[in-house]
Structure formats: structure tokens, C-alpha cells
């Protein structure tokens, strides 16, 4: 029952941030179409180790599409040719026998390459640190049911909060913009009464940090939304614009 395919891989290899980097081509045989893309990469690495070569470094962890660690740009798309998945959820049945697959790291000024296919996404942490939270400390908070929240608001906040911080939005954006990421966090918190309190401050600080870190300006192409493995909508970007402009005009 099991189907296998043979593949040619063109993989970006780069030994450290300062290295120029280059593509290397590898052949792989008998890859089960039931295996995941990263399992295919495991097979490649096992093969490389067998040949005494250094395996390809790539980020991955949970392998169930939620940690946001995996980050491969495959055949022209972040997270590859399937929709609404992360790289680790992509399966080889999406590829044809004999196909050549080009694998690259996320490329954006905001995400410098660390090694091979691994990039540095700490800019996202810095943006969150700039204001992506509610300023409440542990303890001394009201009862969870003290403030009713309309279900549609809670659901919409949940949709925005489902962002996994993988960076596919930045990777696919022709402007290298992080607006979808920032707007998801701003929206998530602005939609809830608990986050509303400091919504203005949050929007201003997070956008300022995003600009400072060298991400581009959003031109509303919507590519981010298409490639987002969690389907975070660009209506969040409209909300961020609204929150930000409101905050700035009130200053």
C-alpha cells in the first residue's frame, strides 16, 4: 500500500551568519509519501551523517504545528505547497516522484540566518516585550467571571491569539513586514476588556519597536494571510491601524 518517491533536493547551506551561503543538491530515494516533510529531512540528514557530512540544520520542535519553530521556505512558499499547515504538518504526498524541491530559510532583513535553514526570530520576542501583554502581576486579580465578555469578542480574540509566531507572514511578504504578527497580538488583547485598558500604549509601543527593528511597511497585499498556517486574518491589520491611529490622534 505504501507509496514511495524519489526526489532531488536543492538545499540552502550557510555556515554561520557571516558565510555567503550556497545551494547544495542532494538525491533522496524511496521516501514514503506518508512521511512528513521534516521526516524526509531526517532521512536526508541520516544519509549525510552516513557519508560523514554535516547534516542540514533546520528549526523544528513540536512537529504538530503549534510551537511555531519550523520555518522552511519550500518551492516558493513558506511552509510549502499545502495550505493552513506548518512545515512539520506538510506531508510528502503533496510532492511528485522525481520532483526537485528547493528549500530555503526565511529571508528578510528582520530574520538573519544563523545556520543553513535556521534564522534568528528574536525580533518577535522584542516586539512582544515592547507591549504585547497586560500589565498585571501574579495574584490580586478579580474573579475570572467578574467581567462577562461577549462570545463573539472572545472568539475573535482567540482567532487572533492563535498566531504561533513562526514568521511565515514576514517570510512571504514582499515588504518584509511584520504587521500580521503585530496586529494579531494587538487585536487579541484589544478585543478583551482586560487588554483594552492599555490598548493605546500597546499599539504605539509595539509598532514603534517593529519599525525600529527594520521590518517593512505593510502594503496590504494579503500574502501573509494566505501563508499563515493558522489563518490569522488581515482584518487584524485594519484593527491595528485603527488602534494605532486612534492612539496617536489622542496624544
Amino acid at each position, binding site marked *: 500500500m505504501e507509496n514511495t518517491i524519489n526526489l532531488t533536493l536543492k538545499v540552502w547551506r550557510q555556515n554561520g551568519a557571516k558565510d555567503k551561503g550556497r545551494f547544495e543538491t542532494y538525491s533522496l530515494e524511496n521516501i514514503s509519501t506518508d512521511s512528513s516533510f521534516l521526516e524526509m529531512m531526517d532521512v536526508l540528514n541520516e544519509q549525510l551523517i552516513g557519508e560523514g557530512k554535516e547534516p542540514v540544520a533546520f528549526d523544528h520542535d513540536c512537529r504538530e504545528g503549534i510551537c511555531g519553530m519550523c520555518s522552511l521556505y519550500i518551492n516558493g512558499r513558506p511552509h510549502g505547497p499545502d495550505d493552513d499547515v506548518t512545515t512539520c504538518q506538510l506531508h510528502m504526498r503533496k510532492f511528485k516522484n522525481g520532483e526537485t524541491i*528547493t528549500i530555503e530559510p526565511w529571508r*528578510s532583513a528582520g530574520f538573519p540566518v544563523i545556520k543553513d535553514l535556521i534564522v534568528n526570530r528574536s525580533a518577535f520576542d522584542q516586539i512582544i516585550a515592547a507591549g504585547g501583554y497586560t500589565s498585571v502581576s501574579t495574584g490580586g486579580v478579580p474573579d475570572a467571571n467578574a467581567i462577562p465578555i461577549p462570545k463573539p469578542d472572545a472568539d475573535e480574540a482567540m482567532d487572533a491569539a492563535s498566531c504561533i509566531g513562526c514568521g511565515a507572514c514576514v517570510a512571504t511578504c514582499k515588504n518584509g*513586514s511584520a504587521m500580521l504578527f503585530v496586529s494579531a497580538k494587538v487585536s487579541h488583547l484589544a478585543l478583551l476588556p482586560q487588554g483594552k485598558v492599555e490598548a493605546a500604549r500597546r499599539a504605539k509601543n509595539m509598532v514603534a519597536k517593529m*519599525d525600529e527593528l527594520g521590518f517593512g*511597511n505593510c502594503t*496590504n497585499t494579503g500574502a501573509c494571510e494566505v*501563508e499563515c498556517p493558522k489563518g490569522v486574518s488581515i*482584518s487584524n491589520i485594519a484593527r491595528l491601524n485603527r488602534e494605532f491611529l486612534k492612539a496617536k490622534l489622542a496624544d
Partner: protein
Amino acid sequence: MSNLFCSSIGRKLLMSLSGLFLIIFLIVHLSINLLLLVPDNGEAFNVAANFMALPVIKFGLQPVLALGFIVHIAYGAILTAQNNKARGNSKYASGNKTKEVMWASKNMFVLGITVFAFLAVHLVDYWVPLQITHGAQEITIGGVTMHDTYGLVKETLQNPLKVALYIIGSLGLAIHLTHGFWSAFQTLGASNSIWRKRWTVIGTVFAWVVSLGFCVIAITMFLS
């Protein structure tokens, strides 16, 4: 408020507002041009054109319009440059195969250049003879002497190359607007998942009405 325009969203706000302003200009422009189609040998059009040459408009509104263009073009260029920088030096070898992204949205700067070229020709053809050198013919309507703008338009549009240029410019404008229109509202924050669809439909209809309107006028003038 102080440093609003130093932020990415602030810069985008300028694009949005100037774009919407230019959209209003387009509506006015098209409305007046439609008078070309009134079969009165251009009388109505000439009167309207003459109105547009009144000092209050020439010295009051034209600089505002010019500013609208300058802001839109200058910030378009600045944003494009910044965005290229943010994209980084290495390009994807496998290109970008993201589906369902409007072509226009990724080529606004190129489309903008097309529209700009059209604008430049337009200025040389009409604005210069009518308002700078005053080299255009004159005509008297209802006792008032004015430039025969109608005649100028008709003369210019006898040249098939010019007509073709106008059509190309109009089409570029249409494509530019299919993205620009809804995008302006998105940037203002006046959008959500429902309104986004509405703005897109309204914008697309608007873009093609305006663009085809200009095309129809140019072709009609050429044929008449």
C-alpha cells in the same frame, strides 16, 4: 500625534489620505470630461474647463492637488525603498508562489509609474498650453472669451498614438485602483472581514468605471 508620520502606519496613512484625495479628483475630472460627450460642440465642456481655470481654483485648489500628487508619489517611493531594504539582500531562489494574492497589490509602484507617465503627458498636452503658455486657441461662449479646451482635446486625440497612450494609462490607473481603493480604507482602519469584501467590490467597480469612462471618451473623440 507629534511623530505620527515617522511611523510606518503614519507613512501609510499619508498614502491612504493622498490616494483618497486623488480619487476624489478623479471623480471631478471624469465628470467634467464626460461633458465632452455632450453633443453641443464642446460648449458645456469649455464652460466647465474655464471654470476650472478661475484664479480661486488655479491658485487655491491646484496647489493642493499638486501636493496630493507629490505626497502620494514621494511616499510611494520612500515606502518602496524601505520595503526593499526590509526584504533583505538575498532573494528567494524559488521565487514567490503564494497564490490568491492580487497582482496589482504587489506591483503598485510600477503601476504608479505608469499612471505618473500618463499624468506627465497629460500636463504637457493640456495644463501647459491652457494655464502656463496660454498657447491654446480661444473661443467666445455667451460673451465670455476663453480657451477652446474642447478643440485642444479633439486635436490631441486625433493622434492614434495619443489615444493608445491614454488607454494604456487608464488601464494602469484601473489596476492601480483595484488595489489602492480598498487598501486606502484598510490603512485607515475602516475595514474588517465584512467591509473588506465590500470595499474590494466597490473599489473594483469604481476603478473600472473611471478607467473605462476615460477610455470611452478618448475613443469617442478619436472617432468623431
